[in-house]
């Protein structure tokens, strides 16, 4: 028997120095737990009531707490709740002489991990303690792995970004050098072809950028921090950026901003990108002499931005797919427009990352309106 007991004792010892706090108003209970746990190599501390126990938890941040339910002052239930609020990863185990199913359920609801009815043997204490610490180890381990996984995903995107862009950048750099005559005279026919090749490489670079942007947003992250952003300035910048394109296509840009200053909580750079994609589409798929109107208005706790064009419109059949990745409407009228098929999905993801939504209504031959709903800042 002795041998078996010893084996089990060895087995219950935790490697490393876990810290355990025993909170019980009964001195005998504190002392016996202290003895068993210290002997097993745990760093053990004791407290005689809830208030001093909570104090100690904040000081020593234990891995595991043994909590008596019936104590003068702060009740065990209340204490359990406070431990959970302070650090949900601290494992709480209830020890009580008034074990009932009801109190066990109540304790579990308050973040207790296990329940040990008094009186208990040293071995029972060891088993429960070991199980609790194992649980804590697994929880922390899985949180760490999750973090590592996200980090890897992010690094992966950066690496892929570099691997895809580098060769393209090198090719493009050669073209630039040749076109500007740093490698000798270039005949006009050659120049024309290299210019065309260079344009195609540019398209590919843009596609890679777009795709990487998508992956970033997909990884649940928008680069940059969230702060109050004034949509008027975002939209004005967007329009400024796209004015040359609009002029070239002979499309007029109009802004119609109503209501109080439209402030949203968000990331300016990302929002600018979303609106740039939308307005750029509205210009590209417009007609000569057409118009793009951008308006904002309030709607309850939300701001609505509407981007309306007088373009070729989207058929009802195609309207369902426009936010799908790599989907592009293919008709005679869209043949001249190049794009990655990622502009709208990126815009949608950015808007959704801001807790907003986007929808489109369209009439073939008349035009399309995109409505973007964003929560006002402070909502």
């Amino acid at each position: 028997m002795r041998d078996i007991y010893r084996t089990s004792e060895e087995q219950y010892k935790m490697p490393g120095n876990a810290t355990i706090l025993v909170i019980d108003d009964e001195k005998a209970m504190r002392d016996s737990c202290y003895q068993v746990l210290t002997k097993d190599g745990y760093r053990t501390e004791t407290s005689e009531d809830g208030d001093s126990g909570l104090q100690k938890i904040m000081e020593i941040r234990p891995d595991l707490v043994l909590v008596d339910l019936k104590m003068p002052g702060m009740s065990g239930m209340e204490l359990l709740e406070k431990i959970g609020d302070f650090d949900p990863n601290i494992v709480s185990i209830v020890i009580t002489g008034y074990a009932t199913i009801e109190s066990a359920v109540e304790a579990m609801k308050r973040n207790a991990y296990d329940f040990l009815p008094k009186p208990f043997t040293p071995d029972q204490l060891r088993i429960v303690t070991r199980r609790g610490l194992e649980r804590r180890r697994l929880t922390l381990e899985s949180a760490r792995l999750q973090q590592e996984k996200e980090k890897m995903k992010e690094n992966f995107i950066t690496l892929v970004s570099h691997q895809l862009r580098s060769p393209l950048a090198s090719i493009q750099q050669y073209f630039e050098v040749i076109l500007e005559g740093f490698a000798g005279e270039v005949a006009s026919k050659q120049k024309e072809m290299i210019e065309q090749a260079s344009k195609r490489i540019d398209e590919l670079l843009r596609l890679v950028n777009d795709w990487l942007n998508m992956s970033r947003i997909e990884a649940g992250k928008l680069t940059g921090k969230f702060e109050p952003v004034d949509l008027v300035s975002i939209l004005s910048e967007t329009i400024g950026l796209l004015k040359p394109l609009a002029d070239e296509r002979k499309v007029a840009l109009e802004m119609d901003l109503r209501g109080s200053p439209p402030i949203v909580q968000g990331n300016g750079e990302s929002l600018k990108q979303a609106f740039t994609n939308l307005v750029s589409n509205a210009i590209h798929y417009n007609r000569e002499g057409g118009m793009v109107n951008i308006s904002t208005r309030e709607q309850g706790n939300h701001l609505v931005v509407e981007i309306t064009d007088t373009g070729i419109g989207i058929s009802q059949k195609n309207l369902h797919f426009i936010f799908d990745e790599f989907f592009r409407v293919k008709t005679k009228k869209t043949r001249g427009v190049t794009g990655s098929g990622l502009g709208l999905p990126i815009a949608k993801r950015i808007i959704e990352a801001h807790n907003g939504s986007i929808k489109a209504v369209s009439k073939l031959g008349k035009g399309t309106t995109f409505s973007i709903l964003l929560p006002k800042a402070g909502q």
Partner: protein
Amino acid sequence: MKDNKMSNKAKILIVDDDLDYVKSIRAILESKEYTVDAAYNVESAMEKIKKTKPDLILLDIMMDRLDDGFTLCYRLKHDSELKKIPILTISAITERTGFKFSPATDGEYFEADDYVQKPVKPSDLLERIEKLLTGRYGKPE
């Protein structure tokens, strides 16, 4: 024009692991009579910088490792003698897809003197180089 001539004799070190990229940049720089040398990794770059004391360094960011360029930049800018050499970073990674950095926003972590994205227009590159070189000559010591 005089200034121009003087800085055109400057020694420029290209630090980049992409041989093709080095070749095309070299063509641009040599056409303006700069003396051009190249290093393809951080260690040989450091050796060359100590030995030849270039007037300007063109620095790639991601070479063998993700942050080689950052590491080299940090080492140079924290060396009392070498920190005077202007560094122009050229990289294919973008603020949006890679690190968020620029001398303006991340000065304390990344103290390069200027940054351009690959590919770069030859005229733009030459202009930036000229600016960094004349800035150096014009700086009171």
